[in-house]
């Protein structure tokens, strides 16, 4: 055990385990804002929102696009359960822009569609931001 300031981190979707590694720091989009996790964090269960997930590990940093789900911290193990997790590098700027246009075109008729429109907008915004960040 040399320098053990890492904790186990995994991203799991219904289809597969997307990522499993040792991380020094992870920032994930919680439902009410971004939240960062370092080693020895107290046990936590948290709902996730839409946003970018940043992983800092000895092997290098990675960014993912996350759409909802849950994060759980227990005994130096952070698990992110989400229905959609895509590496930021795999995002397509054109597709994100189209999604933005589509989201703007959504009509609001009731409370439900308003929520759907807001989520679609947010999704497109985050994707745009993430693709911008990787292109620079």
């Amino acid at each position: 055990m040399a320098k053990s300031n890492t904790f186990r981190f995994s991203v799991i979707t219904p289809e597969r385990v997307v990522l499993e590694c040792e991380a020094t720091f992870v920032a994930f989009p919680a439902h009410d804002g971004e939240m960062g996790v370092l080693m020895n964090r107290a046990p936590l269960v948290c709902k996730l929102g839409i946003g970018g997930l940043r992983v800092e590990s000895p092997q290098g940093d990675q960014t993912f696009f996350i759409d909802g789900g849950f994060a759980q911290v227990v005994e130096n193990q952070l698990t992110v359960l989400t229905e959609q997790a895509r590496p930021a590098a795999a995002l397509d700027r054109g597709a994100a822009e189209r999604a933005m246009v589509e989201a703007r075109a959504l009509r609001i008729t009731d409370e439900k569609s308003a929520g759907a429109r807001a989520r679609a907008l947010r999704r497109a915004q985050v994707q745009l931001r993430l693709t911008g960040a990787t292109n620079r």
Partner: protein
Amino acid sequence: MANRRVLIKRRKAVRNIRKITRTMQLIATARFQAAFNRAVAARPYTERIAKLVSDLSGATGEVEHPLMRAREDVKRSALLVITSNRGLCGGYNANVLRTAVARLDESKAAGVETDVHMVGKKGINYFRFLRRPMAERITTIGDAPKFEQVEPIAAAMMDRFEGGQVGSVHVAYMRFISAGQQRPALIQLLPMVREVVKGGDGEPDAGAGEPATAYEFSPPPRELLDELLPATVRVRLFQCFVDAAVSEQIARMVAMKAATDAAGDMITSLTRRYNRARQTHITMELLDIVGGANAIA
């Protein structure tokens, strides 16, 4: 004479069929491997979600949620039947459909109308043949089900259930138990059964006996459950689709293996018949010659 040629032709035909079925068996084996790997890869999520639900329900005590409310007053239910898009897989579709039809008759006897949501061309054709109505036909899900394909189906089901249009949602599919065993199964998707919420999917070791960890919850456990229970429904449905895909490939593998073996047997018996016919012919010709020679001498 003619008989022999016919035998040769038939043997050739059977040989060609055997080649095809053997290839199909190999393809099914490869597809099964892939489907099985997907099923295994899908397991961690299911387990974690189940664990999370049981942790949370431990923290909140009695769980109450619209998705768990039994609605006996609604005289309408939904049944999702998962069949395959392609045939040549033995009794796979027949078994699932038998379970589905039995369920339909049962609920009809109980005075409950059932909307059938049929997945897979084979099931659709069968129900069309029986002239049974279907509320929805889905053929877009192939042998590699994607979560984003299943999610809208689950969302629609939950909508209809919460809106009070249907009182329950069941799924008929082929459950994958092991590579050697698959069973047609009928599960209740909605309303959610308490056992599912409490201890995973009725599977053992759902963290029983472990001391509960004192979690920090954000938002409070009750609100988290509001999100988690729909997620559980979605992933359970997804699991059904993944299971069905694996079972389908196994069924096809077994059916094609049986067909290949049967073709082999047939070739053996055809060869034997051909050889006998040939020998009879030779003997007859010899007798002709010998008889002719004797007559001259």
